[in-house]
């Protein structure tokens, strides 16, 4: 198998972004989040149009981006339900900060056998 991890560090393609990793402690039925930030390097490309939804109250902006990295991306998890190392803690999906916007990871494609991870993340409005 071809390992293409070096692509993630190629300055012609890669750039930096921040991954906010969320773990959760439950308090009276509510998830209280703790965040640890990680600096990732990888490829960032558009996954969908950045677009507006015209609802009666206002225009709401949405959009999705794809992020690639040799570092793992996490979805919402309950102690090891993803079948691989998930820090052994409950948590919600990673949030990725790129160019001043935050995106929540909604899909992870584990191409680990080829040296990289891909995720698709939805733009978080209102933060």
């Amino acid at each position, binding site marked *: 198998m071809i390992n293409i991890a070096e692509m993630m560090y190629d300055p012609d393609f890669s750039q930096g972004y921040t991954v906010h990793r969320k773990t959760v402690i*439950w308090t*009276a039925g509510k*998830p209280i989040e703790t965040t640890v930030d990680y600096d990732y390097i990888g490829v960032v490309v558009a996954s969908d149009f950045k677009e507006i939804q015209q609802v009666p109250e206002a225009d709401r902006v949405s959009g999705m981006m794809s992020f690639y990295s040799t570092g793992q991306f996490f979805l919402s998890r*309950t102690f090891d339900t993803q079948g691989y190392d998930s820090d052994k803690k*409950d*948590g*919600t999906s990673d949030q990725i900060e790129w160019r001043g916007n935050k995106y*929540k990871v909604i899909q992870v494609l584990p191409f680990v056998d080829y040296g990289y991870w891909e995720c698709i993340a939805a733009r978080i409005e209102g933060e």
Partner: protein
Amino acid sequence: MANIFLSKSDLESLFWNITEKCIGLDPTLQENASKVRLSWPTDGAPGWKITDDIIFVRINDYDDPITKQRDIQSAPIDDNTTILSQEYTRALEISWSLYGPNSWDNSFLLKNNLYLQSIHDQMANSNIYIVPNISAPIRMPELFSAKWWEHTTMNARFYEYVKIDSTSNFITTPVISTTQRTL
């Protein structure tokens, strides 16, 4: 002047606590903090396993003729001002969504233990009273990730005493004027 009603946060805390007690959990233990969960967490929440007994609580108002009747009383506080108190009964519907291998049995416990005197007394301290006509739990397992997950839903209704105060001025000096209209 004091308003008497429970906020969303107050209601969530109360019914979270009561639900834990009704199914035999100690709400003071950290290990039980996630066994009853409040629906619609702002940032989402981790899921659960098929083997976990987890109960979700949802709270809503519902329309009941009793909420239309309002008792309005006036209590003067000085020569110019009075406190107007509106008192009425608010109607609440609590929905439980129970998952896990014991979800059906937990709904049985919940339905019966809501009538316990200790639960009644705890609710009464917050001016909440059960409407003693709880609908039957509905067992409806869900297909998720190629397995049938045990799932039961159940609703119950409650009344809450509400008092809302406001101030109002008396008419101390009526001013009467006449205007002649020309046709």
